């Protein structure tokens, strides 16, 4: 049975995030011929219409109020709620990101809906929409469905592949005016400090170069950053490295910290404690570099090099540089 699906677009630094295109792919899958609508908030929304339509949106609802340029829970909540009332979707999807996981539970609570968060797969099965999601940070998985009524889910970045762009598609565009009552936005964002590394977000990075206690100091992360730079990836860390103050907690990967699923995960000087493995073992390809041949990380690695990371990582950076230049 066809279903109307609403996708909340996620914009970061004025750019549409990949997870929105992935959500459109999921939406197309479950719509079964129904309409896929994307909702875009903020004054830059218009610039995203083409990309959204090429990747599966049949309709785009723009809410160009500049008060939505900076995310606040209350402004997004009010707007999202009005869009839902207007579109009357049977399925609602957002990214499981700072935006999606903040506003979706509030919307679900207000509308009395179930919400399946942080899904890595979605399928149609016997008339039901079934989501797969990790629990215990990926040590196990569950398949979940919403019992009845509107289906609402947030999707983990990097898991459901986006559709190939189809440039022949164009979406119907509608604008919706939303006004905010005075005092209805109860939080004030005074300042935003960008700390995320070079614009490559850890949770969306295709390559993650990660350091553990073996990195030995904050300076020890330098060669890892260089390698990540060459590969267009992001730098991560184990709890050991964060606890030892070698890096910021925002880089921590594990059951506490972030869970990542890049195409390539390079673990440098990481022993492989079970709580770290939970955060990265679903990466597509894992490389381990460690002095200790008995290190647990080698049990999950596809390829391992036993050696000193301070020797191996710079050599690896040089080799990648060479090969990547040759192939340009």
């Amino acid at each position, binding site marked *: 049975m066809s279903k109307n699906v609403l996708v909340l677009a996620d914009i970061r630094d004025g750019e549409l995030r990949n997870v929105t295109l992935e959500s459109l792919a999921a939406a197309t899958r479950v719509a079964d011929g129904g309409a896929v609508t994307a909702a875009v908030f903020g004054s830059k929304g218009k610039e995203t219409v083409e990309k959204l339509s090429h990747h599966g949106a049949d309709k785009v609802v723009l809410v160009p109020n500049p008060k939505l340029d900076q995310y606040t829970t209350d402004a997004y909540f009010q707007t999202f709620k009005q869009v839902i009332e207007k579109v009357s979707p049977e399925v609602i999807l957002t990214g499981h990101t700072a935006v999606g996981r903040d506003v979706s539970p509030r919307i679900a609570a207000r509308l009395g809906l179930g919400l399946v968060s942080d899904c890595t797969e979605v399928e149609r099965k016997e008339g039901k929409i079934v989501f797969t999601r990790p629990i215990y940070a990926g040590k196990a998985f569950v*398949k979940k469905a919403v019992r009845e009524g509107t289906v609402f889910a947030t999707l983990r970045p990097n898991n459901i592949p986006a559709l190939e762009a189809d440039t022949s598609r164009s979406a119907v565009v509608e604008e919706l005016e939303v006004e905010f009552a005075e005092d209805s936005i*109860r939080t004030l964002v005074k300042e935003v*400090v960008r700390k995320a590394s070079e614009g490559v977000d850890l*949770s969306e990075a295709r390559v993650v170069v990660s350091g553990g206690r073996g990195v030995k100091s904050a300076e020890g992360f330098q060669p890892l950053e260089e390698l990540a730079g060459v590969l267009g990836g992001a730098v991560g860390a184990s709890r050991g490295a964060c606890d030892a103050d070698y890096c910021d907690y925002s880089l921590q990967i594990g059951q*506490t910290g972030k869970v990542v699923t890049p195409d390539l995960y390079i673990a440098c000087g990481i022993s492989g404690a079970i709580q770290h493995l939970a955060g990265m073992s679903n990466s597509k390809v894992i490389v381990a570099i460690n002095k200790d041949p008995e290190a647990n990380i080698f049990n999950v690695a596809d390829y391992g090099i036993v050696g000193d990371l301070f020797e191996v990582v710079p050599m690896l950076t040089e080799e990648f540089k060479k090969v990547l230049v040759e192939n340009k």
Partner: protein
Amino acid sequence: MNILVCLKQTFDTEERIVIEDGQISEDGVEFVINPYDEYAVEEAIRLRDEHGGEVTVITVGPERAEQALRTAMAMGADKGIIVDDEDLENADEYSIAKVLAAVIEDLDYDIILGGYMAVDDGSAQVGPRLAELLEIPHISTITKLTIDGETVEVEKDVEGDVEYIQSKLPILVTAQQGLNDPRYPSLPGIMKAKKKPLERLDIDDLDLDEDELEGKTETLEVFLPPEKEAGRILEGELEDQVKELVDLLRNEAKVI
């Protein structure tokens, strides 16, 4: 200042997961306060020590979850409330938030804290849901909290970036890693905690309709990820290993 902390008892993060009869086995498992909730407990105690008042820790769970409340009280929380979840068979985030809201509606509070997610289900829903049911604002994933009179200042982690946000009490905030270093309970703290008041509630004690207790989602299957086979340890001169690795990543794994 009346401070409430919602917490959950979870598996220790070093535990392996075993599935028995389609369920996750709790046999021999060590339980802890969900690490993100532990930050919330620590922050609540610091707020109380600075501003005065009382810290109440609240949980919904089986009998064993009482231990998590005792640990929080040993850290310094003043009292605890546990809602027995025996009659909550098909609970999900929808129903847990309803239960917590029903408990909290009868309490005086200035601020509510919790972890931004639990390390077991990891859904990150209950905090924002609860704030909505109580009709108060929330700020999630905070790494710093300052309260001056009615004014609340926080630093919020936004996937690596930091937002400096101002708001007002009453508010609900959820803790991100980096908020503080939770203390270990001291021996005198553990002794004192045994005598601190702990209220035990049943679902029947709360003003809730039957249909609010039934979750809106259902779990169809629980399974373990495919076991990963150990891969190849490269051999030979380091220089050759590096060349081989790059070649394998490009031509065998095809990820570069």
